[in-house]
């Protein structure tokens, strides 16, 4: 495997923004428990966009939620998760709550549902400021207007006073991103933020995320099942399958010289215009390889 360079630019003396070590997440069922995430380790370095790719049920969302400590109470977590060196799994609920939305922001998949229909968008975007920094409402709303403008929403003053249903899908997602950015977090976790959007809007949101990384040096953990999105956006990618990380590498290496069978299958399953008659291999094909 020397044909493609696969060196991750390691930074001496730097602490990873997010470091997950031997994470295990189990959900107890009646007698046994189901292991949803199985001893995974991953790093997100400052100013880096890291992708986790995998099919539904591979454990990628659970991994993200465990970093936020937002898993259901009955779940069991082992291993360690550190945000900028702070171990998260040892924190009490109150300290964890203070990190969420401040140092650690989350962008959900469905922005429409994540915005409260009864509150004006401006209030919701300004919320993290009043919540964590006790900014007076007036200043928080001014800042929220700037934030909406900075994520590419036109006429932010007007938009501030509108309700979520008056926003298009892309604008709702931008508003969620603005809310996530309010306190300039160290890490932005985005859980399939573009899945519900159509392709042109998706491209705009991806460009926005890249711009955020470049301007604010925010590290981004991007969860998706879409290889195209990963290729477009990420610096480093982890491939997850059935709760394990089957391989990780640079975008170039993963796409040109995948090492794991599952990654190869994932790549082959991507519809391609250059091979119009290309039929995605069935699961039976996976067994034969």
């Amino acid at each position: 495997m020397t044909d493609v360079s696969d060196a991750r630019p390691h930074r001496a003396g730097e602490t990873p923004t997010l470091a997950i070590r031997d994470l295990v997440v189990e959900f107890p069922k009646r007698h046994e428990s189901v292991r949803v995430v199985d001893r995974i380790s991953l790093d997100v370095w400052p100013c880096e966009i890291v992708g986790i790719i995998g099919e539904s049920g591979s454990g990628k969302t659970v991994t993200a939620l465990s970093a936020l400590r937002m898993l259901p109470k009955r779940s069991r977590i082992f291993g360690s998760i550190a945000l900028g060196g702070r171990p998260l799994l040892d924190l009490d609920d109150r300290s964890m709550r203070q990190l969420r939305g401040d140092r650690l922001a989350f962008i959900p998949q469905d922005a429409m549902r994540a915005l409260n229909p009864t509150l004006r968008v401006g209030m919701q975007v300004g919320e993290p400021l009043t919540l964590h920094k006790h900014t007076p409402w007036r200043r928080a709303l001014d800042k929220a207007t700037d934030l909406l403008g900075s994520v590419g929403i036109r006429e932010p003053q007007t938009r501030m006073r509108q309700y979520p249903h008056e926003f298009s899908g892309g604008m709702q997602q931008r508003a969620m991103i603005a809310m996530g950015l309010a306190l300039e977090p160290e890490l932005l976790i985005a859980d399939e933020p573009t899945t519900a959007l159509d392709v042109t809007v998706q491209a705009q949101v991806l460009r926005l995320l890249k711009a955020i990384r470049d301007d604010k040096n925010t590290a981004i953990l991007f969860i998706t099942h879409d290889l195209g999105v990963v290729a477009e956006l990420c610096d480093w990618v982890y491939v997850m399958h059935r709760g394990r990380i089957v391989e990780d590498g640079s975008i170039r290496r993963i796409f040109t010289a995948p090492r794991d069978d599952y990654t190869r299958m994932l790549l082959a399953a991507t519809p391609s215009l250059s091979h119009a008659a290309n039929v995605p291999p069935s699961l039976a094909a996976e067994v034969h390889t």
Partner: protein
Amino acid sequence: MTAGLNWPRYRLVFLGGALVTLVLLAAIFANWVAPYSPLDLDVVQMLQGPSHDHWLGTDELGRDVLSRAIFAARVSMEVAFVAVSVGLVGGTLVGLVAAYFGGWADLVLMRAMEVLFSFPAILLAVVLMASLGTNVLNAMIAIGIVFIPGFSRLARASTQAVLRQSYVEAARTIGMSDARIIFREILPNIVSTLIVEAAVAFAYAVLLESALSFLGLGAQPPDPSWGNMLNTGRGFLAQAPWLSLVPGMAMFLCVLGFNLLGDGLRDIFDPHLRD
């Protein structure tokens, strides 16, 4: 939405609202609206039928029945307002806490509500009045307590529906505390349902207050209330039917108004009927 007001949809609200406004204005401006003092005796004029001087006649002590009915509206509105507020605030808090925290909190709170619910409303109010003492303030509290279980069930059910929405989860991801989620994220989403229920409860509070006064547990004579006017009129049903008819009609119109208002508001707030 662009074609202005949708009349069929707002008809009930306007009809109910007009009746309610009438009663409220009479109650608030009783001092100016009522032609006589509700307490002035005029022994010469007792038990007179409707006339030019006394539009709705006089009672057994020669007091003007119209004036008494107008001042009685004030008592009814005060009692109903405080009672519904007590029920609304108390019940909503219980319901929100029970639904949000679930588990033991839910179990204990809702079983307590069921105990309250198991008593007939009048009986519960009478028992509470008997232990608190008979005056208007206690009537307000007693009726308010009667309303708590109803509001708590409604608030709990609505909260459970809202809790399944992802914006509650999203609020947690930005680090909101439980209390802030309850009051900022959930409450605004259940408030319209509660307002509709409050309008209907208002009508019921008027009836309950009248019932308590009728039994001699609410407003004490000589202060007028529809209930004690009705009770007095009962003795003169054959000679002076207006003594019963006037407070009865006042109650009827008031209760009808609040019920229509409640139904109308429900139609407006109901998302399934939204155009």
